[in-house]
C-alpha cells in the first residue's frame, strides 16, 4: 500500500462527511479520523547508538531502516511493507498501516515504534504512548519532511552518518535529474491517484516537488488541497501533456485508454502520453525518492511506448498484488 495515497482517502472521506452523518451512518466514523493531529510533539530522544528493537508502522520507514543497513533491528513491520522483498519476508507483522495492532506491538517489546501520521493509527499511537512504548511519528508530506524523517530514523537506529549520506545521495540524484530535465521542454503533468471521483496529486506534496524536479508542471497544484478532487472539465481546460495514472490498478492498459478517450483535446490523450503508473517508489517518501524522480523523468519525457524507460533510467518495477486481509 502506497503511503502517499492514504492522505487522499482522508480528504475524500471528510468531504463526504455530511451525507452519512445526516442519515446516521456513524459507522463511517473511524475512517474519518483526523490524521493531522498526530504530530511530532512529545517525541522522545534516542540514546546514543540508537535502540535495538524497532517496530515500523509504514513501508517508507521500513525501507529507510533497511537502506541504513539496520534491517536486523526491525522486530515488527506493517502488513503493507514489501520492500526490500526478500528481507521483509521473515519479519513479524504488527497490523496494517491504517490500524496497527497495539497488542502485537506491545508483545514485540520494541524500544521505539516509528510511523507517519495516518487517519487510522491515531488512537493506536495514543494507546501505545499510554502504555509507555516510545512512538515517533515522522512527517512525510514534502521533501523537506522526508529529509528530516530519514535523519530522525537514522538517529534511532544508530546510523546518523548513514542517514546524512543517504540524504546527500538522494539529493545528488535529484540534482542529476534536474539537470537532465533542464535540457527538455517542460511538460504539464496530471498525476492521478483515484477515479470516480478523479483525485490527483496537488500542491505541498513531495510528488508535486518531484514532478518539478523531473521537468514537469503539476496541473493539480493549481487547485486547493493536497489531494484535490478535480472535475474533468478542469482537466480538459488544463490540457496536461502527460497523464500519469496510478488509479487503474492491475487492469491498467486498455481501461486507461478507454477512460480518457472522450477527452481527445487533451494533448496527453491525443498524443498518446497516458502512463499507467505502477511503481511503488513514486509514492513512498523514503530512500527510493531518487529512483522515483528518475522514473518520473522517464514517464514525463519519453514519447512512444508507454512505460518506456529511455536514457538508461531504471524501468519501473511492477507493482505487487494488492495486500489482502492478513491472517
Amino acid at each position, binding site marked *: *500500500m*502506497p503511503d502517499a*495515497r*492514504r492522505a*487522499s*482517502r482522508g480528504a*475524500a*472521506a471528510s*468531504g*463526504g462527511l*455530511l*451525507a*452519512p452523518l*445526516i*442519515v*446516521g*451512518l*456513524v*459507522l*463511517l466514523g473511524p*475512517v474519518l479520523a483526523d490524521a493531522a493531529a498526530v504530530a511530532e510533539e512529545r517525541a522522545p530522544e534516542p540514546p546514543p547508538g540508537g535502540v535495538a528493537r524497532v517496530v515500523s508502522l509504514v513501508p517508507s520507514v521500513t525501507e529507510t531502516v533497511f537502506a541504513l543497513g539496520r534491517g536486523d533491528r526491525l522486530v515488527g513491520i506493517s502488513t503493507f511493507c514489501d520492500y526490500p522483498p526478500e528481507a521483509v519476508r521473515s519479519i513479524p507483522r504488527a497490523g*496494517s498501516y491504517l*490500524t496497527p495492532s497495539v497488542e502485537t506491538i506491545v508483545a514485540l517489546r520494541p524500544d521505539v515504534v516509528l510511523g507517519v501520521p495516518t487517519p487510522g493509527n491515531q488512537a493506536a499511537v495514543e494507546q501505545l504512548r499510554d502504555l509507555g512504548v516510545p512512538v515517533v511519528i515522522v512527517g512525510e508530506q514534502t521533501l523537506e519532511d522526508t529529509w528530516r524523517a530519514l535523519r530522525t530514523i537514522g538517529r534511532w537506529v544508530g546510523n546518523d552518518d548513514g542517514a546524512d549520506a543517504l540524504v546527500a545521495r538522494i539529493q545528488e540524484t535529484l540534482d542529476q535529474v534536474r539537470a537532465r530535465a533542464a535540457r527538455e521542454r517542460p511538460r504539464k503533468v496530471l498525476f492521478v*491517484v*483515484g*477515479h*470516480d*471521483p*478523479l*483525485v490527483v496529486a496537488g500542491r505541498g506534496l513531495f510528488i508535486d516537488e518531484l514532478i518539478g524536479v523531473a521537468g514537469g508542471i503539476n496541473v493539480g497544484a*493549481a*487547485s*486547493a*488541497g493536497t489531494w*484535490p*478532487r*478535480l*472535475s*474533468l*472539465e*478542469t482537466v*480538459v*481546460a488544463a*490540457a496536461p501533456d502527460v497523464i500519469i495514472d496510478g*488509479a*487503474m*490498478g*492491475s*487492469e491498467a492498459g*486498455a*481501461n486507461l485508454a*478507454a477512460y480518457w478517450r*472522450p*477527452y*481527445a*483535446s*487533451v494533448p496527453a490523450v*491525443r498524443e498518446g502520453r497516458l502512463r499507467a503508473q505502477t511503481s511503488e517508489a513514486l509514492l513512498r517518501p523514503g530512500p527510493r525518492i531518487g529512483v522515483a524522480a528518475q522514473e518520473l523523468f522517464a514517464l514525463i519525457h519519453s514519447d512512444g511506448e508507454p512505460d518506456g524507460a529511455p536514457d538508461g533510467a531504471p524501468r519501473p518495477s511492477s507493482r505487487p*498484488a*494488492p495486500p489482502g486481509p492478513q491472517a
Partner: protein
Amino acid sequence: MSTAPSAGPAGTPRALAPRVTARRLAVLHASGLAALLVVMAAAALVGPVRVDPLAAWLAPPDDPTRVILLGARVPRIVLAALVGGALGLAGAALQALLSNPLACPHVLGISGGAALLGIVAMILTTVPGAAALGLGGEASLLVVPAAAFAGALATALLVQSVARSSGRVTPHTLLLTGVVFNAFAAAVITFLNTLADFYRAHGILAWVVGTLTVRGVAWTLAAATTLAAGLVLLSASARDLNALGLGEEGATSLGVDVARARRAVYLAVALLVAGAVPVSGMIGFVGLIVPHVVRLLVGSDQRLVLPAAMWMGGAFLVVADTAARTVLGSTELPVGVVTALCGGPFFLFLLRRQATDERGALR
C-alpha cells in the same frame, strides 16, 4: 353548504372534467421534458471552466472547449437527469405504496443494499482472475447493475418482511428497519473498503456518499433503459397505488391485488435503483423531497405524481450537481453532500409535521 343529499346545483361540469386522460398525461410528459431540457441547457452553461456553448458546438472535434462541453459536461448532466429521475420516481412510488411520506429508496436502505452488492460485484470483476471467468472488463457492465438490482430487491423484501413480522407495518418500524439496514450496509462497505486495493478506495467511498460518475455511454444507456422500464411498470401500477391510498383493505375492496401491486412496485424500484446506483452510489433525499413538491403542484393522484416526480427529480439533481461541480471552483463536491444539505433539514421538518399529524389524528 347544503347537506341534503339531493340538493345543490346539479350537473356542474367541473366535477365532470376528466382527471387523467392519455392527452393530459402527454401534456404532462411534454412539459416535464421541456422543463428538464431548459434546466439541463442552463446547467450546460455553468462550470468551473468558462465555455462559449455556440463556439464550442461549432469547434472541431478535438477543440478543448468542445471536449469540455460535449465530452465532460453534457454527459454528466444527462447522467444527473437520469439518476435524479429514477430516484424521484422511485421515491414517489414507495411513498404511495407504503402510505409513508418519509419513504424513499435511500431512507429505506434499498440504495444501501444495491450499493453493497454492487460494490462486491465491482471488486470481484476487477480481481485478478475475474477476466478468466468472463467477469472482467466489459462484463462488469452487466454484472454490477445485476448485482445492484439483486441487492435492491432483496433489501426491499427484507425491509418489508421485517416490518410486517413485527405486526402492523407502522411508518416508523419501516423507517427504523431501513436505517438499521443502512448502518449495516455502511459497515460492510467500510469493511470492504479496508480490504480493497487502495486504488479503489476513493471509488468505494464515492458510492457511500453519492457521486455522479460518468462511466461511459453504455452505463448511461443502462440507466436510461431501467428508468424507462421503471416508468412503464409504475405507470401501469398507478391506479393500484391510488387505491392503496385507502389502505390495504380499501384497495382490496376496489379489486386491487395488493400483493401483486406491491411486487410490481418493488420490482420497478429495484430496477430504477439498479440503474442509478452503479453510476451514482447512494445519493440521498432526492426521492424524499421531490414527491412532496410534486404533490403540492399536481395533487395526490399517482398517475400524475409519478411522471411529474420523474421529471422534477431529474431537474433537481441536475441543479444539485451543477452546484456540486461549481461551488468550490475546480475542486468537486460529491453531489450527495449537496442533496443531503437540502434534504436533511427537510426530512426533520417532515418528521415533525408527521408527528403533529398523528397527534391530531386524521380520521
